[in-house]
């Protein structure tokens, strides 16, 4: 069940290999020539080619990024999850190196990509993939290699994500608690799915090898220790995932989150909650379709959170028929914009206070001849927003303790924000020929 990959390729959309690395030499490299034809063939057959397939004893696993394919081939029963995640890691690392990963940047940096591919995988097994650490000994700057680099201790340390000897004049930690709300509402206004994906993102500027401990108002911890929260409520996180720096067994034992952080930015943890809370921003649409002449929309948006909070940069995307023309809008607040290339109307509201409700009307002309399938109506509305100083779950950072041998004092800063995740509300069927007054 060895998970080895035989070779990794980066290809353009025409299937031309931009760069490749043969790790095991057990598959002829020309197997890649069959890749794109096979994908296209599958597309014709089923319209849903899977990202994993086998042909002639060779297994192909691929992802798409911008205008590139990243492809791994193997002739073993490899660990598919590992391979997929590895390919995504390659994308992330290369993106951190070159800002944008695309054909151009690959050509310009082929030398360093070879070096990275060599370091990130050996004999088909992933090795060091932490881009912070890689950047310490595989550098962009090819011309000043007078000083010989050595492998950072971190490559093989138990703490593989942080190097020793980091120094800051001012020791600070920034904690961002970001909650993304995923919502799916059907056309009748029933909530089909509502979940919160939370993340605690950290920016760490700390010297030395600091030992951190984070306290949350975690219900399970309070229950297991028999204490009750000093103030406010405690929350129940459904599935918590930690950055590899967190000691998982310790968390499993007594729910303490303790870790030596990497330097700079990283996601400390993510969690998921299924909540029954009211959708934060509720949008109702009324669509009247006068086939062959015009279509009218009445959109009502309501902020269903407390008055003292405000949602910023709210954007409501309303899909409209592809052949709509001559848009007219009227709204109580914000600005409305028609984006024909996406066949949608975007209603932007800079600040949307809790408890308020606004409406917007849109009016479009329609061509008198209409094709029969109105498939475009099935696209859902999507909503974007950010609510600062607010979390839906009520999660709170109770403390962040920082200890380092030198004994410096460090300041933790905490921010909370709730934003949209995959926030979709399906459009209702349009009413044909009712009597709504035209604008």
């Amino acid at each position, binding site marked *: 069940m060895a998970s080895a990959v035989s070779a990794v390729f980066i290809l353009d959309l025409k299937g031309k290999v931009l760069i490749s690395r043969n790790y095991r030499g057990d598959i002829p490299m020309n197997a890649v020539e069959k890749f794109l034809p096979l994908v296209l063939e599958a597309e014709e057959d089923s319209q849903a080619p899977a990202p994993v397939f086998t042909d002639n004893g060779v297994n192909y696993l691929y992802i798409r990024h911008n205008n590139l394919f990243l492809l791994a081939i193997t002739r073993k*029963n490899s660990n598919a999850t590992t391979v997929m995640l590895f390919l995504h890691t390659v994308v992330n690392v290369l993106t951190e190196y070159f800002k944008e990963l695309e054909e151009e940047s690959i050509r310009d940096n082929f030398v360093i990509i070879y070096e990275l591919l060599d370091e990130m995988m050996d004999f088909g097994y992933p090795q060091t993939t932490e881009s912070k650490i890689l950047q310490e000994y595989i550098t962009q700057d090819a011309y000043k290699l007078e000083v010989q680099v050595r492998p950072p201790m971190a490559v093989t340390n138990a703490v593989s994500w942080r190097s020793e000897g980091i120094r800051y004049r001012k020791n600070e930690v920034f904690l961002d608690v970001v909650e993304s709300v995923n919502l799916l509402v059907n056309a009748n206004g029933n909530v089909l799915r509502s979940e919160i994906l939370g993340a605690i993102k950290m920016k760490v500027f700390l010297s030395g090898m600091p030992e951190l401990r984070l306290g949350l108002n975690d219900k399970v911890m309070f229950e297991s220790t028999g204490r009750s929260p000093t103030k406010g409520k405690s929350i129940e996180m459904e599935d918590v995932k930690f950055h590899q720096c967190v000691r998982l067994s310790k968390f499993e034992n007594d729910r303490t989150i303790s870790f030596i952080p990497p330097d700079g930015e990283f996601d400390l943890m993510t969690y998921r909650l299924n909540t029954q809370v009211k959708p934060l921003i509720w949008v109702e649409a009324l669509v009247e379709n006068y086939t062959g002449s015009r279509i009218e929309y009445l959109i009502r948006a309501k902020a269903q959170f407390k008055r003292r909070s405000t949602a910023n940069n709210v954007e409501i995307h309303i899909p409209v028929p592809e052949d709509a023309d001559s848009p007219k809008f009227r709204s109580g607040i914000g600005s409305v914009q028609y984006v024909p290339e996406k066949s949608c109307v975007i209603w932007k509201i800079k600040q949307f206070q809790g408890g308020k409700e606004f409406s917007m009307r849109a009016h479009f002309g329609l061509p008198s001849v209409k094709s029969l399938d109105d498939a475009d109506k099935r696209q859902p509305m999507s909503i974007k927003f950010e609510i600062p100083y607010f979390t839906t779950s009520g999660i709170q950072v109770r403390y962040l303790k920082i200890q380092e041998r030198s004994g410096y004092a460090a300041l933790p800063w905490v921010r909370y924000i709730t934003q949209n995740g995959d926030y979709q509300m399906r459009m209702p069927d349009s009413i044909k020929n009712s009597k709504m007054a035209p604008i």
Partner: protein
Amino acid sequence: MADFKLPKPKFFVTNKKGENAELLADLNSEYRERRKDAVKRVIANMTVGKDVSSLFPQVVKNMQTEDLEMKKLVYLYLMNYAKSNPDLVILAVNTFVKDTDHVNPLIRALAIRTMGCIRVDKILDHLCEPLRKCLGDDNPYVRKTAALCVAKLWDLDPERAIENGFVTSLQELVSDTNPMVVANAVTALAEMQESSETKDVFVVNVSVMNKMLNALNECTEWGQIAILTSLAEYKPLDSKEAETICERVMPRLAHANGSVVLSAVRIILIMMRYIRSDEFNKQLVKKMSPPLVTLLASAPEVQYVALRNINLILQKRPDILQNDIRVFFCKYNDPPYVKLEKLEIMIKLCNDRNIDQLLSELKEYASEVDVDFVRRSVRAIGRCAIMIDDASERCVNVLLDLINTKVNYVVQEAISVIKDIFRKYPKRYEAIIPTLCQNLDSLDEPEARGSLIWIIGEYAERIDNADELIENFMETFLEENAQVQLQLLTATVKLFLKKPSQSQEIVHRVLQTATQDIDNPDTRDRAYVYWRLLSTDPQAAKAVVLSEKPPISVETRTISPGLMDELITNISTLASVYHKPPSAFLGNKAYSPDAIQKAAAADAQDEELHAVDGAESPAAAKEAAVKNAMADLLDLDFGSEPTSATSGGSFAPVMSPITSSAPALPPTSTGSSTGPNYSSDLFDFSSDTSSSIFGSTGASSGAGSSSNNFNSNNSNNSFGSLGGFGGSSGGMMASNNDPFAGLGGSAPAQQPPAQKPAGQQSGAMNDLLDLF
């Protein structure tokens, strides 16, 4: 140091002639920068696929340098071209050996890593000494690289690895102080164990297991996966120990890396086999659900792998995720392959509590744009109806709503689905037949037409104008697809048996046309059988044609228990994605490093992957085939795959033994000669005609198989033509949903040996004879 002002180098752009000559000069230049630039251009040429192997000696000369980047480039070049210049590789050996003694551990590791990647025998002679040194190096970075290098050596020459004691060294490294070294030692050992003949390279016993569990906490994510993979090999002594292992592994479920999570899930599922406490197992199942759901927040490709695994786990542990059907609802922007997998899982999770929710969701999907997804959604509604008796009426109503949308492909799919509902619940929904018949004109797909004709034939006594409707179809009889022709033929006979007075003339015409004007041997043969039946013994005809049909059901658990266990052991791997055992998709022969051209045999194997679909074990295939040989006459011939509009698709399962084994068969085997005799006895055909007819059947239906295989296997084909159509009717709804089936993602492990079909055939024939 020469002052070389390089412009922004454009390594890929050259249009000069004799580039290699120029490179040659630059590689020999006295200036370091110029040499380095030349090496980069060489690598650039290599990257775009130009052959720069002729520069080998000059490039290798540049290997001895203190410039790390230059060294890496030369190493890269060596890895790529060593094979084309095996004799010259020896030039590099000296520098390699020297580099493994370098003060800088980065260079030591680089040298040993690269040496291992040069798959040339000459290098092996010089690899062992440096490798031994590196395995005992002070620096863990070098040790972890050397550990994998042992696996590289093993891959080329296992004997040498054993003789030099490297296997023992690796086993010692499992106790190394450094977790990364442990992880790589485990990785290397696991790989060697797999290909080892004695299987004693890496035995996971209690002490090894404990070492691995201890290293687990401190490893990188990839290291953890390696360790978890090997842990799965451990056989716990008793239930208690299995519980302890689960407890130790459980924290990994909280890891951010999805592969660590799935690897942990794999161990837990394996250990559950040993755990006797139901309570404990229940707890484990509960603990696994949330992490599985969270995997759905990953990138789509990872989601796909996760969904395929969840699909599997659900079949093994149906109690998992019971209340989570909503998380599988499709998002508008999910890629199609994710949507289809979610659909499968939703059907598996469907029960009488969530059916309403699911139905409204499926109805929503049925109005999306992606035709394939829409069809599958409609089909899913039918599967719900067949699974949940109480909900069947609601399902039928939703289907009627969909038929009323008049969207062509929705209507067709819905009608095909309703046919199955009619079969499951005979006489329950006759009232909707008029609505179905209204859409007669819009049906242009064989399966939909066939389905409606089947319904008309089945309910001929209740449909007043059944004869008119049949008459209507008769106009295009000759142009119809074979599947439709067969249906029409049978429906007409049913009509005649039910209402002899009205339809004598039609049935006569149909049989006449079918036997005289139609080239398709299946249709023609069936017409002959019916004709003979009707003319000799109408009662027997009734018994055959109007007999009780076996009930159909939805198989949500399509995987046999034995295969299931194997797949659970392979959670997260390719096998779990394809839902096939590894032996089914892995090429058995290794490509020798130099054999670039694939053998002709590989093509044959390819065919096999294409043709084989569904049949899981020889026994099952045989059983199904025997049972279904009858089904053909009983007119249950619908393809199972939604995509299989032509009969070719439904042939595949039965055809597979022929295609796969054909190359190995002698031109005439005993099995081949008995077959035609059976059929000629039955049909009173001369042996010659029969073989030519059946031969052509095979060629036209065996999707993608080369026709020369068939001449030697007529008997098998004749069986195929009889049993073939029925082959899928038993599992009508239990379609194989591997979207890549067409790409050959599916081949069962064992093919029935070639002689089997002949045996099956005689069995099938006997069944027929019994009836007469």
